């Protein structure tokens, strides 16, 4: 099967401290994956390395058959590999409408900006109601919607969402989860980082558990572990209760 994303032996970090140790994972054409695991073990760092914000020190990343390990964000975005980072505050002094228009920055995205803008407003009616509002005045949930909206404006061929429901109320969380499921149904492959394993299982085909900068377990959603086992994965053999 053709691989959309292929990561082999990736190492990356900040200065002297290495966060990713020999991490390998892949996405086949037509599937979505989820990443979970304890905080501070390299999930966000992995996404930063993929999107070019952080240069890996070893290993390789291939997207759609092309090596992108040392490419900078503009060309990675142009290729359609889009990253909505965790807690993305975007641009406080910019209005919602112009932020979304700006997000269709690459030539490929610009060509379809009109259609994508309609889709984003249909997906998140709240953004349509607040078009002229500055991003700094938005609530946490609305900011998350804007961040995902911007990612959609980039015309993603693979969309990476880093904890899209972090810190949101249960009701908002549900709303965003439904929107993300809708995006997935339109055929956009996803990499989703989340703590909520059940949510990931319902959304994606496979899950990778990441610990100490490595993949420690791979789970297929088809034979998913039950709640007890998930808890054991997180907290060790002793169990959570």
């Amino acid at each position, binding site marked *: 099967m053709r691989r959309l994303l292929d990561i082999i032996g990736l190492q990356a970090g900040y200065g002297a401290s290495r966060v990713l140790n020999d991490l390998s994972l892949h996405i086949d054409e037509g599937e979505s994956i989820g990443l979970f695991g304890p905080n501070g073990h390299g999930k966000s760092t992995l996404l930063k390395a993929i999107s070019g914000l952080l240069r890996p020190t070893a290993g390789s990343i291939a997207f759609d058959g092309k090596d992108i390990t040392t490419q*900078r964000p503009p060309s990675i975005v142009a290729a359609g590999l889009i*990253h909505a980072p965790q807690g993305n505050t*975007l641009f406080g*002094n910019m209005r919602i409408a112009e932020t979304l*228009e700006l997000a269709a*920055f*690459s030539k490929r*995205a610009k060509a379809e900006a009109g259609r994508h803008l309609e889709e984003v407003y249909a997906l998140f009616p709240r953004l349509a109601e607040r078009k002229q509002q500055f991003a700094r005045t938005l609530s946490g949930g609305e900011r998350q919607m804007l961040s995902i909206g911007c990612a959609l404006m980039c015309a993603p061929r693979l969309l990476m969402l880093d904890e899209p429901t972090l810190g949101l109320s249960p009701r908002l969380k549900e709303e965003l989860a439904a929107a993300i499921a809708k995006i997935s149904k339109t055929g956009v492959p996803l990499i989703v980082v989340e703590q909520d394993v059940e949510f990931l299982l319902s959304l994606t085909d496979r899950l990778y558990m990441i610990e100490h900068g490595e993949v420690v377990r791979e789970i297929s959603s088809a034979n998913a572990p039950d709640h007890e086992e998930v808890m054991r994965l997180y907290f060790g053999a002793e169990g959570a209760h």
Partner: protein
Amino acid sequence: MDALLATLVSGLVLGSLYALMSSGLSLVWTTLGVFNFSHGALMMVGAFVAWTVSEILGLGPVTGILSGTLAAGLIGIIIERLLVRPFYSNRNMLLITAMTTLAAMVILERGAQMIWGARLKQLPRLIPGEVQILGTTISAHEALLIVLAPLILVALWRFTVMTNRGRSLRAVGQNQDSAALLGIDVPVAFALAFGISAALAGLTGALLGSIRFITPTMGSEPLTKAMIVVIFGGLGNLGATAGAAYLIGFIEAFLIFGLGLYWTPFVLFLLMILVLLFRPNGVFGGK
């Protein structure tokens, strides 16, 4: 009454000059977070190049002004590349670039002295003759400055608000990582901001070259005034900067009229200190 109107018109001319200078400074500050001390020297380069192309090469003042604008813009991009870009990831970037752009100012001023010498030079006026505004007679060239400044400011404002290329400059200034993840090339945005800012300085210098004398240090006084303007208006907002530019222009004109040339800088700096003490975000600055 006549004296009052004359002072107003003279304030308008000064305000136009300061608006052109300070909007460039403000653009670089909002995009890169750098204060460009070579901004005045870039203005001077624009004037000298305009003079050379117009008077020595004999190509006329319009070609001269365009060449001066372009030359300053190019030198601005070179300064960004060589003296600002190497320090982007440095924690002390603001301090280091204050020194490197000051160095650029010295290099440009000394270089101009070596190339063009110390003799005073002047460009012919773009439009000969005089016009009457509010019952005051000023040269048509100064009137052109009054008309041109708001047009250029509106064009700059439209660029940063209506076009994606212009918006990308604001985005990069507010959040580099988020901008990069939308596909915006951050170093390109920095170079573009520096280039536009320097070109604006060059244009100002070329226009000023037929009102004042062209000398290697002609940019230092406008740079000082532009600094007062951006502090007065609050850094980071084009509208506030433009408003402050005209305000300072009027205040200066009235101070010269009432107190004389000698005490005017003293009062202006006193005002600046008061603003910094009581409204550190500027007279029009919120937050």
